[in-house]
């Protein structure tokens, strides 16, 4: 359907019974759609209210002033450092794989594409096991930040590849052919025609994947060698990154330290909000441009 246009039966006279039933159904559907959003909002509100000890804000402030804020800052920096390392590895490789799948001299696509798609569906804990074996044991990288970043890269790589591939597929073949007709080499066509046209789609998929990496805890739990007693917020230790730091809330709920973890939750959600908003904005703009005169299908 074209955007903003809806098909509906022509109505003559008062609504018959089936239309009333349709309206009831629509109302039920709307309630169902709203339900999860509202539930999560209420739960988050309750979490902030109960955990932060809003009734005694002085305790929280005191704790943050005592060095809690510094620890929190360190875990945020650790997370950013981890995610940027992960992105540096995963994004070029993922986009490269997608380019090869959709580029000139396409391989038999179904098998390779199916493989990537099913990798994207593999639970992320299992990549934690792979990271443990590959990076900790085989490459002797230890329980370090590099190990954690590479493991996260394994998780993110298929997601980036799938997103980039669908963005590249949306580039019409006519654009490529026009490039070749002007005498460009395949790499020139890829770099100057295909990539710019697909960039917003690739970018929005990548941002969403990075947002996921930012909040991912399960594979890190395995790779970082996490123990609650030995939780550390030292820079350069993957046990100190934000998602794992936040787990302190579960160990010692409703103490001053948990307030710090709670601020961590807020930071985590804020980052997520910014990243997803950015990705949605990019996608929205791209869709509008694709529907506009520039990418109009000549047929």
């Amino acid at each position: 359907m074209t955007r903003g246009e809806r098909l509906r039966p022509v109505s003559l006279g008062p609504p018959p019974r089936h239309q009333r039933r349709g309206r009831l159904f629509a109302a039920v559907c709307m309630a169902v759609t709203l339900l999860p959003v509202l539930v999560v909002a209420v739960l988050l509100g309750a979490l902030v209210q109960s955990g932060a000890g809003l009734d005694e804000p002085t305790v929280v402030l005191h704790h943050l002033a005592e060095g809690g804020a510094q620890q929190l800052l360190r875990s945020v920096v650790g997370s950013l450092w981890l995610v940027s390392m992960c992105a540096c590895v995963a994004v070029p490789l993922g986009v490269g794989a997608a380019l090869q799948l959709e580029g000139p001299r396409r391989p038999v696509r179904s098998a390779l594409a199916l493989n990537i798609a099913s990798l994207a569906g593999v639970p992320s804990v299992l990549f934690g096991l792979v990271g443990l074996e590959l990076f900790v044991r085989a490459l002797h990288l230890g329980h370090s930040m590099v190990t954690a970043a590479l493991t996260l890269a394994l998780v993110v790589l298929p997601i980036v590849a799938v997103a980039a591939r669908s963005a590249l597929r949306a580039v019409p073949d006519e654009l490529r052919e026009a490039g070749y007709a002007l005498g460009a080499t395949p790499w020139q066509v890829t770099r100057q025609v295909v990539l710019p046209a697909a960039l917003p789609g690739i970018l929005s998929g990548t941002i969403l994947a990075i947002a996921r990496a930012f909040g991912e805890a399960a594979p890190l739990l395995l790779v970082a060698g996490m123990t609650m007693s030995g939780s550390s917020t030292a820079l350069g230790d993957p046990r100190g990154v934000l998602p794992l730091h936040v787990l302190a809330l579960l160990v010692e709920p409703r103490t001053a330290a948990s307030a710090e973890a709670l601020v961590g939750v807020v930071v985590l959600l804020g980052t997520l909000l910014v990243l997803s908003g950015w990705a949605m904005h990019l996608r929205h703009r791209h869709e509008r441009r694709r529907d506009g005169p520039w990418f109009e299908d000549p047929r």
Partner: protein
Amino acid sequence: MPGERLGLPEVALSPDRHFTCIGLGIAMTERFHERAPPSGAGPEPWCSRPAGSGDRMVGLALRACAALPVILSLSLLGILAEGAWDGAGKLGIPEGGLWPRVLGTLLVSGVALAVAVPLGLLAALFLSELARPAVRRWLKPALELLAGIPTVVYALLAVLVAGPALARVVPGLEVPSALVAGLVLALMLVPTISSLSEDALRAVPRELREAALALGASRLRMLWLVVVPAARPGIVAAVMLAVSRAVGETMIMTYAAGHVPRTGLDPRVAVETLTGYMGGVALGQEPGTSASVFTVGAAVLGLNVLAHAVVLRLGRRSGRWS
């Protein structure tokens, strides 16, 4: 060994296994390339320019990138298959056995899917067909945001807020329990299902809808008898993704489902799931060896594949528009 870091090698895989994975991966990828349609002088039939050295370098790099996912999946399978055996050549079965954990996983993800699939499908129907554009414009992003909330946060919500609140309503509910974990997991799965299904519903051609309406169907009948069956493959794919997220979800399972391996079907008490066991061992809350963790990992992957097969099978039956 509680309190100790997981991952001290019991049996390290010999490095040549990894080289085997890499070699096999490259060979398989290249095999797929060879089967590509025969090209003329240039890399594309209509490309008149011969490939320069730069082109060749880039082509090589891209081919390496394409081989990477194949290598990764081979390594995944190899590592899980081999890590599962301990030093004595025995399969590393965790204390209490594998079966209770499999049942626990099925129970929690069953609860989650029983809630999330109907909700997700209705939400998809609403967003794609029934909502006014103005409502859709803010409700869709809001729902999609739920899918991106880190699972750690969901685990916190389950244990600290949702669990105690539910315990007040449901008699006999323990706070880490299958029901709490399942319901919170469902919150995470609804947007996963709804956004993919919505894409499938919107892709149903306008002509089909027009034909149904022209035959005198009401809007509800048009949706139920024409649009939903036509979108069935996309909907099945959405449910498949939700199943694998449910089976593989770790943080919620570790904290909100409990650590009591149990075979009962009562969702109100604590159980232990496969991923919950892995999380428990990694946190040092439970005894476990590296072999048992890898065995459980292999079981997660196996369950995942099995669940996919079941969903595919269910989706294929009575396909009206196939």
